[in-house]
């Protein structure tokens, strides 16, 4: 029978039951691959539940370094009876199914084109461990050991991982290593190892790291100088503040006094969280919050206040799937419109779109510079895929000579020296950005009243229409200034003066670049532009004008980014062909590739079919 043969290029999926302790074992597996110098991208597919429901862990190994979701499964580790039938169906023909053979398999689930590999995990556990809890827990460790034999994972790498993990808790090392060995030996004794799919050490990861985007963002807030974090728990954003908290405890506690050089408040809800951020920022601290879709909706009134009263605020939106509560444990890029135009009245907000953990780190730090220098809210739009999955990324770097850009703030000396009257909303530098003062700066100068109502340039309340209009126009000028400040898009030219362009952003990056590579190989040259910030700067207009056919890859139903492009760059929606994925799982290179080919193959570069589907999708 056919069997899949592949070295350093396959997908293995773990099917577990939520709450059985599989996560740590699965992480160990992915990390082991990584330590063998191989690019790896593990993705958690978990339920909105705490215990007892199916959960999956999909690991792609790709020596070439393709980290997007590939689709398909070469090997399934089936630890969940509930989902086993479906799991087995999912395996590619010629693939492998690993299971606990302590109980015989239901024959009806058998497939003739799949290789079944049984290891009596439960039995092995019971023989080895007494505590029933340990028995459950170590089953997971044992299958990792078995996989080591089956896939040629260097055992030393696993041993190293265990001792790293349990440094300081040495008594835990022995049983874990023991469990690994149990699996390893059983597999090597009962099966011809390795299987057709296997690993070989390479030097393909260089100095890269394996980290989730939320932790990177939390750390970015520390490096960015944030001192106040106010938040309300919500999946998948919770680990941003957890990360901030974890590293603040290490890096931000005054050794002498034990006092904290930061404050974290779990607010009563999202309205309060953003309110605290605005209050703290108004008072001169760098403050942020992290949330997801529902929180964005709840924060919109306050976001309008911050826009209009010109108060810095940093918000991290880790997007999840769907309107309302939707699919809280799935991924999407569907808060773009809600964030860009949050709140009633004429408002628009600065957005950042990270694609890697390193960008989560950098952009979070940068968000504070932008928010303070532009005196407006800055929203970083990441998503569950990037935020919660360990992702291979260039190491985090910080330029120690870098200084925080605190923006235009008059200090006591400047106010003292000032002869004219201080005008909070005067556009002195003709860039639309006025000067602020912090409360308590000067005994008799620089005080002003912040309000969400209209006011003149001296922050005095007014209902004068001209004053209102003038102020709103200045805000547009500030918007233009912002275009020069937000991170520029990343342009990759195919070289041969291609007529086809693809615009993408955020977590569509890996899949898009992989698709482009494969098309390139077939002689279809495509330029790509990765959006990293909103408002867009000129490069974007230019890119669209320069290409006959421009695709736009998005992970939402309504082509929300297209709305922004069309609106801001005054280009026709027909110039952009959306490639939309919104089922809650990360977009694949395969899908993008096919969507592009459908259009490019037919000489009609904008076929009606597409057009219509686009129309519907908007």
């Amino acid at each position: 029978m056919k069997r899949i043969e592949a070295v350093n290029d396959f997908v293995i999926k773990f099917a577990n039951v939520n709450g059985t302790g599989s996560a740590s074992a699965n992480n160990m597996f992915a990390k082991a691959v990584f330590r063998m110098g191989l690019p790896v991208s593990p993705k958690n597919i978990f339920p909105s539940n705490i215990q007892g429901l199916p959960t999956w862990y999909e690991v792609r190994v790709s020596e070439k370094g393709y980290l997007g979701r590939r689709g398909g499964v070469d090997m399934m580790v089936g630890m969940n009876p509930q989902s086993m039938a479906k799991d087995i169906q999912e395996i590619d023909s010629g693939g492998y199914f690993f299971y606990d053979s302590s109980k015989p398999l239901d024959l009806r689930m058998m497939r003739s084109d799949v290789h079944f590999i049984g290891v009596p995990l439960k039995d092995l556990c019971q023989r080895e461990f007494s505590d029933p809890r340990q028995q459950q827990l170590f089953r997971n460790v044992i299958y990792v050991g078995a996989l080591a034999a089956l896939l040629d994972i260097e055992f030393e790498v696993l041993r190293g991982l265990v001792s790293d993990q349990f440094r300081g808790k040495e008594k835990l090392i022995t049983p874990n290593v023991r469990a690994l060995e149990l699996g390893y030996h059983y597999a090597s004794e009962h099966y011809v190892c390795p299987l057709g799919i296997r690993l070989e050490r390479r030097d393909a990861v260089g100095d890269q790291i394996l980290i989730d985007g939320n932790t990177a963002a939390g750390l970015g807030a520390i490096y960015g100088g944030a001192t106040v974090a106010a938040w309300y728990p919500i999946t998948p954003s919770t680990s941003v503040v957890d990360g901030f908290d974890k590293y603040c405890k290490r890096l931000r506690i005054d050794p002498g006094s034990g006092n904290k050089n930061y404050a974290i408040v779990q607010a009563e809800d999202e309205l309060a969280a953003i309110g605290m951020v605005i209050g703290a920022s108004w008072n001169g601290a760098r403050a942020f919050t992290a949330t997801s879709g529902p929180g964005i909706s709840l924060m919109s009134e306050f976001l309008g206040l911050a826009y209009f009263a010109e108060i810095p605020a940093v918000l991290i939106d880790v997007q999840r799937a769907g309107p309302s509560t939707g699919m809280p444990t799935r991924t999407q890029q569907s808060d773009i419109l809600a964030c860009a135009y949050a709140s009633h009245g004429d408002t628009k907000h600065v957005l950042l779109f990270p694609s890697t953990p390193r960008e989560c780190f950098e952009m979070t730090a940068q968000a504070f510079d932008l928010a303070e220098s532009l005196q407006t809210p800055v929203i970083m739009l990441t998503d569950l895929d990037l935020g919660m999955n360990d992702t291979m990324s260039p190491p985090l770097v910080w330029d120690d000579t870098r200084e925080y850009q605190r923006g235009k703030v008059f200090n006591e000396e400047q106010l003292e020296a000032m002869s004219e009257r201080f005008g909070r909303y005067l556009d002195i530098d003709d860039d639309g950005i006025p000067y602020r003062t912090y409360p308590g700066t000067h005994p008799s100068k620089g005080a002003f009243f912040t309000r969400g109502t209209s006011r003149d340039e001296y922050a005095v309340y007014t209902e004068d229409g001209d004053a209102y209009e003038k102020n709103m126009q200045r805000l547009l000028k500030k918007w233009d200034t912002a275009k020069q400040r937000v991170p520029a898009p990343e342009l990759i030219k195919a070289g041969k003066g291609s007529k086809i362009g693809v615009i993408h952003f955020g977590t569509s990056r890996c899949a898009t670049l992989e698709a482009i590579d494969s098309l390139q190989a077939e002689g279809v040259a495509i330029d790509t532009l990765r959006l990293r910030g909103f408002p867009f700067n000129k490069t974007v207009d230019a890119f669209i004008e320069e290409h006959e056919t421009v695709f736009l890859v998005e992970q939402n139903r309504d082509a929300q980014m297209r709305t922004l492009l069309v609106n801001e760059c005054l280009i026709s929606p027909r110039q952009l062909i959306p490639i939309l994925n919104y089922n809650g799982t990360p977009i694949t290179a395969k899908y993008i590739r096919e969507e592009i080919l459908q259009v490019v193959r037919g000489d009609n570069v904008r076929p009606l079919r597409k057009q219509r589907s686009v129309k519907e999708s908007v």
Partner: protein
Amino acid sequence: MSYIRPVFRHPDLPRNALGFTRKDYEGAISTLCAGCGHDSISAAIVQACFELALPPHKVAKLSGIGCSSKTPTYFLGNSHGFNSVHGRMPSVATGANLANRELIYIGVSGDGDTASIGMGQFTHVVRRNLNMMYVVENNGCYGLTKGQDSATADIGSASKKGEPNHFEPIDLASVALQLGATFVARSFSGDRAQLVPLIKAAISHRGFAFIDVISPCVTFNNNPKSTKGYEHVREHLAATGTVDFVPFKEEISTEYEQGESKEVALHDGSVVHLHKADPELDITSRRSALRLIKDYKAKDQILTGLLYMDENSQDLHEILGTSKAPLRDLAAAELCPGQKVLDKLNESWR
């Protein structure tokens, strides 16, 4: 903190310890209705800050939305102010306070701003024992939106539209006590003699200091059943369906001694019965305060004065254990661990 003296001096005017005159604590001219109780409260705040000799710029004023929430514009013109959004001042004050624990925070709100839309945030700012003074200018109605009943309106009381209210009023002082507020007081806008010292005490209190100030709305608290006043005019307005006529009124003020009861007649002829400081009251006991409030309410009276105080509570900063220096003043060096640390961390992710 720098205590630079004010530039101009009025040799004639009395000065406080810092050399400031009362004028230095005043704000812009009020745009509230003539006779509005809220203006009396603003005046009391000015007086209290003057007597406490606070450096005006070391005070931050915060409010929500409403006539009451407008008042921070009308006092302490040399202080920064923040008129936020409706019902959300507590969160903004919390953030401000976290950023700089050294300033003095004065929050002004209304009964609508606090007891309706703001009830959630109010509950939690009390719970966090944020170090601030929180004044509710309580008129039992929504003044700025033309007189709808608020959640503190007494049962049976009628707004200008003449419809009696049927819902249990929320007694914010009792709720605050119930939630663990560490300073709770009640007063009447017209009782300057009682209000000024209460405000001084509240500002001096470390932790959350709540003052519920009954502050009549001269425009919309017009009980139609009222004998006093101006039915004629009201009928005129009722007939024309316009509520844009506000007869000029004097501010109501009153004075009475500790332990006394006092009837205060409002513009519309309705009467509030106030009682000052009951001898039984033990201000170190929540339960005695809660009990007496109810006892007086049963007698249709309102117990005023300082009701409860806990001097040894921990404010939010102490609970969190934040640095003594204001967070906003920390230098980059104290905040940013730099590349060396990052190198180590990167290792941990390989």
